[in-house]
């Protein structure tokens, strides 16, 4: 695998394995993340996979120790194949209610995309997505694999409160708000599933980077039946 290694100040390395948002770059990111986790180098505090990069935060305070880490990572990258398997993560089926207030921007988004709301739902439920990264807020999954015909820019004015479970679109990405947050994504539906549960400290997030996701459409009565807060 080829990677460009950038140093971030004196506490981290940023490994670039591609550009932009594509499945192959994302697959390389997750293969590299797994390899680093298995190698478990000395002094590493955190590994942050993103769309096309992996951040390694370290706590080493000497030039000698950071140089050694740098070298170890360089060798590890060189030993990885350039093509990585894209379908390795755990597959989640996520039920989404796209109707009524749950998909407040669905009608507008459908009209902007020149198709019916039903067509948007059909196309949103069609692909298998990959969790490229988690960021913005704890447990917020950035999914790649969105049908390009559904790509829509963020809202001009972000909402101050987006309800937990809201499923949105921002440019070529789709994602799910794990908790109530401010946000500017176009909201097309909502899932009754809990994506973030701090009471389960061992596994507080339903979705982790590298996991796969399929959406399934449910109606409002099914949503209410499954929503633990109802």
């Amino acid at each position, binding site marked *: 695998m080829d990677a460009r290694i950038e140093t971030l100040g004196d506490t981290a390395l940023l490994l670039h394995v591609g550009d932009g948002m594509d499945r192959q770059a994302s697959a390389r990111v997750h293969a590299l993340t797994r390899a680093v986790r298995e190698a478990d180098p000395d002094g590493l505090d955190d590994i942050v996979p993103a769309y*096309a*990069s992996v951040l390694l935060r370290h706590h080493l305070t000497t030039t000698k120790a950071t140089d050694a880490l740098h070298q170890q990572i360089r060798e590890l990258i060189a030993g990885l194949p350039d093509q990585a398997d894209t379908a390795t993560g755990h597959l989640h089926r996520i039920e989404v209610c796209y109707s009524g207030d749950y998909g407040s921007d669905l009608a507008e988004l459908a009209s902007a995309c020149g198709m019916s709301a039903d067509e948007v739902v059909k196309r949103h439920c069609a692909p298998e997505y990959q969790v490229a990264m988690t960021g913005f807020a*704890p447990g917020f999954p950035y999914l790649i694999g969105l049908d390009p015909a559904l790509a829509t820019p963020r809202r001009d004015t972000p909402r101050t409160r987006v309800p937990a479970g809201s499923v949105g679109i921002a440019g070529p990405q789709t994602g799910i708000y794990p908790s109530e947050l401010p946000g500017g994504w176009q909201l097309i539906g909502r899932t009754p599933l809990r994506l973030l549960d701090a009471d389960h400290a061992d596994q507080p997030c339903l979705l982790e980077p590298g996991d796969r996701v399929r959406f399934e459409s449910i109606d409002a009565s099914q949503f209410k039946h499954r929503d633990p807060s109802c």
Partner: protein
Amino acid sequence: MLTIKQPGPLTTLQDLGRNGSAHLGIGHAGAADQPALRLANALVGNPASACALEATLLGPSLIFDHDVVVAVTGAPLSKARIGDQPLPPWQAVHVPSGTPLTLGPMAHGCRSYLAVAGGIDVPCWRQSRSTDINAGLGPIPRALEAGDTLPIGHTTSKLPADVDWSLDPRPWFQASTSHRIRLLPGSHAERLDAASRERLVNESFRIGNDSNRVGLRLEGPHLALDDALEMTSEGVVAGTMQLPPGGQPIIMGCEHPVTGGYPRIAHVCAVDLPVLAQCRPGDTVTFEWIDKAGAMELLATREDALEHLVDRIRERLEQA
């Protein structure tokens, strides 16, 4: 047991921070001024990783239901009292059961630390007792409030009844409202236009009012890139200086989001992060470039001095 009487505007539980959860979007948090926390813990015979209180601008008032030993470090609390007696800073101090401890306002700086012998003994949440205020996570996922009660851990260290020595705070806290911060170039430093490159190191910036543990907003000179950059989100660290399109840089704080999508023009070197932690809104900062070898040497020297001091404190506590 410790009971909060008045919490102050933002008093939270903090330790050395949370590692190993950033891939889930769960950040590091932890004490903003880590040397101050480590020294407060050392003074009361705690391990560096013990949990303490981090106060912001105005300290809390609290009371204990048994005799304890405490130490305060960080920003100076010139009006701090035990009952009606002054509380000496950077020193182990006995606080009798039922005597109110009032920390009061900070004369300079932004954050003070109160360590209690035995540590604040709440359970860990994902390997840390730190509160992440912005995410609302941690064993206590919010700022402390009046009436909160916190368990104190058992301490094995025997503290002498008459500790009459204190640390010299000068290497660890600068009582100033203008700060000089050293920067390592970020990957997009060279994309700054020529005028902005000059401004970054030749002009001073004001710490914005909406700065907090998540980030410091810099006001003043406007910075711009030669050409706009298309970026996807990438990991960032505490100290990363990002440049949003508005032209006012933001420096990531101890509770920063794990990823960022703005150009990274610089990184505050790790040795200066505690200085940044003590910047309050309205303070001014100036920047200068440093190279990585120089930054790492400063950090190694600081760590040696800190570890040496912690060892000396332990020896003195054991001798007494």
